[in-house]
């Protein structure tokens, strides 16, 4: 019985550590390397001139609603520069799969050219998103760079 009690204590401690670790990852904005793009056709709407916030939601997921409010607010503060697109992950399963969306809400921050630059899963961090948006360059500089190249 003593060994079993000890085993249970270890299980509880292990679960708490695991939970804390998973929780810390939740909502953290992570930089995305590589050149995965999402174009306007896939989104069904035009890209923002500076950035596009692509949100993957599921029907009645609770943190998705909070995320929707935050992202809609960020987009409303910079109309046309920042566009917020909220997609149902199930209805856009191919897109969700291609971008390894494992949980809702997942947010992808696209730059002006549609390249995925940042991502987060779980409840969103408005301050981190605002910083990431401030780093993005508007579309005309990007097109200039492309036309010169």
């Amino acid at each position, binding site marked *: *019985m003593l060994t079993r009690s000890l085993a249970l204590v270890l*299980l509880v401690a292990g*679960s708490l550590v*695991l939970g804390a670790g998973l929780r810390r990852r939740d909502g953290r904005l992570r930089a995305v390397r590589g050149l995965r793009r999402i174009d306007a056709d896939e989104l069904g709407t035009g890209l923002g001139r500076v950035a596009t916030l692509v949100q993957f939601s599921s029907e*009645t997921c609770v943190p998705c609603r909070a995320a929707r409010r935050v992202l809609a607010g960020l987009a409303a503060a910079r109309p046309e520069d920042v566009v917020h697109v909220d997609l149902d992950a199930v209805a856009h399963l191919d897109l969700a799969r291609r971008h390894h969306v494992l949980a809702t809400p997942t947010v992808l921050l696209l730059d002006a050219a549609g390249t995925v630059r940042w991502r987060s899963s779980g409840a969103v961090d408005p301050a981190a998103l605002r910083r990431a948006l401030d780093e993005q360059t508007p579309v005309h500089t990007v097109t200039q760079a492309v036309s010169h190249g």
Partner: protein
Amino acid sequence: MADRPAGIDPRGPRFAAALTSVVLAVVVLTGALWLLAVQVAVFAAGSLLGVRRSPYGWLYRRLVRPRLGPPSELEDPAPPRFAQTVGLAVTGVALLLGLAGVPYAVEVGGALAFVAAFLNASVGLCLGCRIYLLLPRRARAA
């Protein structure tokens, strides 16, 4: 009223996870095969009938929900229901192995399911729900 498919009170599955953790903790402590069998039956009910009609969901509506205010938001019942299926698979295999006389199968299976249930109850993290989105569409429709 009973069949409102739109959403469920998210505190229901959380309460069920707390009860599940307690039951599975006792399974780990005692190695009681019959108690694991009870939990397997509860998982089976949640998986086949939906979380609202599982015994713990029923207890929540009868005993806990009337003492709480209405939920501020509703939740999709499909992911927690899927999580019940995952729990059923893990504990079901442990039960079969235990019945076949494999030593510590009951305890190990109970421990695995305990971690998932305890994570859900304590920090609101549903591991089974996270797998749900990875499934192909036709498996999810079932």
